């Protein structure tokens, strides 16, 4: 009996996905305009705001304007927003993505992670889930956009903005990891 317990403890699952400091992988994913997009395409970028997002989640909807605003503010400064949908079903098909991106006039890529391989590699768990990368694709921040999903104006800790501002000015990122309630990414093998 004791032996079984020890074996069970030893077999406890290793945490999947990146920790802050890990080097993130690039990818080749289909954008809503049909083209394949990689981080390497952005030759002028100083870093990236990678956001695992989806169409249907109320948290994604609550943050949608803020995601658009992040790109407005930071793309020109060298930190474009890259959104990735890895969700399976429930209104998150590629066709649904195209519809939303057109309706909202996205000026940033909205990529389809059909196999969910990128979401798994990064360790995205719920939407929206942000991974801020520096120029070398080192993960510098993981987590929520800010501390108030319901009300943008009441958000006092703007985690992603603070992280990107720090990277832009060569300072260390003040808060490197946060958690948020959100829609768990629906895995294909679940």
């Amino acid at each position, binding site marked *: 009996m004791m032996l079984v317990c020890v074996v069970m403890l030893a077999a406890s699952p290793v945490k999947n996905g990146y920790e802050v400091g890990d080097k993130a992988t690039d990818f080749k994913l289909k954008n809503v305009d049909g083209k394949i997009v990689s981080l390497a395409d952005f030759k002028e970028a100083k870093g990236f705001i990678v956001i695992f997002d989806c169409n249907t989640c109320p948290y994604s909807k609550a943050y949608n304007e803020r995601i658009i605003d992040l790109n407005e503010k930071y793309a020109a400064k060298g930190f474009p927003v890259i959104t990735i949908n890895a969700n399976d079903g429930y209104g998150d098909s590629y066709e649904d993505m195209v519809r939303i991106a057109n309706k909202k006039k996205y000026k940033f890529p909205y990529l389809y992670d059909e196999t969910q391989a990128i979401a798994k590699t990064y360790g995205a768990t719920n939407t929206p889930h942000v991974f801020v990368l520096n120029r070398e694709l080192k993960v510098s921040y993981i987590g929520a956009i800010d501390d108030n999903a319901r009300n943008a104006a009441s958000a006092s800790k703007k985690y992603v903005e603070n992280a990107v501002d720090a990277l832009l000015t060569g300072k260390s990122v003040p808060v490197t990891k946060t958690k948020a309630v959100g829609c*768990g990414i629906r895995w294909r093998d679940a």
Partner: protein
Amino acid sequence: MRYLMLFTLFFFLMAPSLAQKAEQIKLKDLQLAINTSSERIQVFNFWATWCAPCVKEIPLFEKLNQENKTVEVTLVSMDFDLDPNPDKVNRFVARKNIQSKVVILAESDPNSWIDKIDKNWSGALPTTLIVNTKSGKRKLVQKELHEGDLEKLIAEVNN
């Protein structure tokens, strides 16, 4: 016979308002429930009215609640973060005639307490936490459950 019919009609009309109102609790109340030694295995399901997979698996918890009296089921609504008004949750509970205990975790800024519920929890919904409060053994499952999953998890914390 007529009175029986009238009574039955009255009862069914009143039934929705007889349904439980979800109690609003704070983090410390939830922590107490998770950590206080109890005879029954504690099953906490973290869900929200807007979460489709959460709603889909609720019948599994209702069935468990009804069939297994050695287990205590608590459905913890996470609706507060997006909507502090409890009406939506209460209407949902009434509409679905939910029998399991439903509570609303009335706390903002989830980042400040997600770890305090379970440090392995990403915050994703649905998530289910099963605790054997006597042995301290716990299992956290961060995805939608299917038929048979709950029984298996309960057996795992029981041995």
